């Protein structure tokens, strides 16, 4: 039998290696439209952009190592159509038959819908090719405007300002990273970036981008004109679901799957950034964009493809490196009723816990890996906490986190 995986990114690679680790000896075909073997994206906005890591070291495993594991890698080929009845996938150069199919199609940057967004000098960042373009553009740029104060935008801002550029971040919301972290964390990072020299405009409305062929300025709704020779748009991502939807699979916000990662077609699965899945930590269906989700969900899908039935139940976690600061988050902060701060924001080392019904549902840590690791256990275990105890520096978090729930 053949397992075919569409999308050779973090999730696709994980599915391929996991089915092999589980002892599956049939054919494994991993198909990707990028020219590179699977590689890591997180460094694109971090070490790679800074120049402290090169393209070669982003590659997870050389193609030969994958071949040695019996993974047939087909690169530079786009999957164009899935035929659910014939169980085939059309790619640029032919047709591939599957018995089980995994969709690991990832997501692509959301486009900025304002006039001038298609000018030269306006970039987005998803793949290695984008990273290489951005890096070389950054070398010669002076005025950098970043649209979107999310993780990617702020990571790039920190690198650009450290390289001596004039950097402006335009955030549509009332605070940076608003959907992902507690207000205290936004405030702390806002100050950190300003201290580094970045200008941050919140509640920003972009009217248009100007330039003849190359971008020159960005005009805001209030009439302010900001000089720009490089604009990076980082306003979120949309899942690559077109081929799934065209095949008749339901794709409300990503490919709809059940707890084991299976679609309505029992031979088709999805994982990673493209999968809309039931998640205990969200209390609903969600689509997550993180390395953790890509890896853990892919392990679940690999098991399900081999007819095991473990549900996806891994605690979400994420990290973001901005300037000298390391942000680590766990859980999903939707529906928090209150926030508890532990540690000292002034000293640049603290954690904000998101509480709901007396339990930690999420936590954001700044330069506090130990808190973060404890918080992961607390979120996973649904451990009841007393806010004052949690905030008390005398409390040993590790002991608290190790408790068993009744």
């Amino acid at each position, binding site marked *: 039998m053949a397992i075919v995986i569409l999308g050779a990114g973090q999730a696709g690679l994980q599915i391929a290696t996991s089915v092999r680790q589980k002892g599956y000896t049939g054919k494994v075909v991993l198909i990707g439209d990028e020219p590179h073997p699977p590689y890591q994206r997180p460094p694109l906005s971090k070490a790679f952009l800074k120049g402290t890591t090169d393209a070669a070291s982003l*590659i*997870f*495993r050389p193609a030969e*190592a994958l071949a*040695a594991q019996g993974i047939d890698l087909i690169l530079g080929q786009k999957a164009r159509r899935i035929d659910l009845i014939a169980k085939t996938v059309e790619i640029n150069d032919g047709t591939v038959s599957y018995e089980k199919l995994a969709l690991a199609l990832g997501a692509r940057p959301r486009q900025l819908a304002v006039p001038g967004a298609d000018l030269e000098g306006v970039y987005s960042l998803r793949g290695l090719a984008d990273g290489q373009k951005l890096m070389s553009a950054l070398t010669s740029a002076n005025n950098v405007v970043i649209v979107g104060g999310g993780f990617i935008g702020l990571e790039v801002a920190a690198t650009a300002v450290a390289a001596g550029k004039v950097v402006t971040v335009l955030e549509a919301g009332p605070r940076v990273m608003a959907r992902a972290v507690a207000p205290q964390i936004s405030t702390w990072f806002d100050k950190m970036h300003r201290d580094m020299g970045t200008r941050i405009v919140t509640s920003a409305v972009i009217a248009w981008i100007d330039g003849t062929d190359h971008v020159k300025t960005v005009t805001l709704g209030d009439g302010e004109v900001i000089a720009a020779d490089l604009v990076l748009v980082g306003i979120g991502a949309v899942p690559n679901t077109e081929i799934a939807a065209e095949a008749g699979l339901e794709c409300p916000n990503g490919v709809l799957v059940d707890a084991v990662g299976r679609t309505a077609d029992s031979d088709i699965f999805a994982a990673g950034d493209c999968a809309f899945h039931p998640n205990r930590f969200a209390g609903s269906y969600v689509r997550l964009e993180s*390395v*953790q989700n890509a890896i853990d969900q892919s392990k679940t899908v690999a098991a399900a493809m081999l007819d095991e039935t473990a549900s996806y139940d891994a605690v979400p976690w994420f*990290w973001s490196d901005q300037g000298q600061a390391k942000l680590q988050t766990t859980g999903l902060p939707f529906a928090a009723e209150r926030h508890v701060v532990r540690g000292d924001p002034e000293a640049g080392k603290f954690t904000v816990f998101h509480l709901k019904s007396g339990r930690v549902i999420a936590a954001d840590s700044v330069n506090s890996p130990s808190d973060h690791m404890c918080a992961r256990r607390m979120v996973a275990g649904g451990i009841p906490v007393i806010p004052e105890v949690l905030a008390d520096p005398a409390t040993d978090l590790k002991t608290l986190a190790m408790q068993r729930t009744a």
Partner: protein
Amino acid sequence: MTTIHFQSPSGEVTTLKGVVGQSIMELATSNGVSAIEADCGGACACATCHVIVDQSWTERLPAPGVMERDMLDFVAEPTSTSRLSCQLHITDDHDGLLLHLPSKQS
């Protein structure tokens, strides 16, 4: 080229040649040492690249940084010579380094 040995809990040894500056994690994962998962790709954010330095080598490695020490508390089977292999960068002095692989990463 610097020779590094990885010994599995069952005693099996994988010997790899790394280049100076490369992390031990990169050397291991790019050569299919699956006992090193390295979920975060070297960001010191996951603690799934745990290795145990052989007693005979502990003195010859630089001490772990604060971040690494904190994360090491949370590996599945911590020992006094545990390290995160993404934070260990190969130098000329590491020729012959012996590392033990844990039976699980998390």
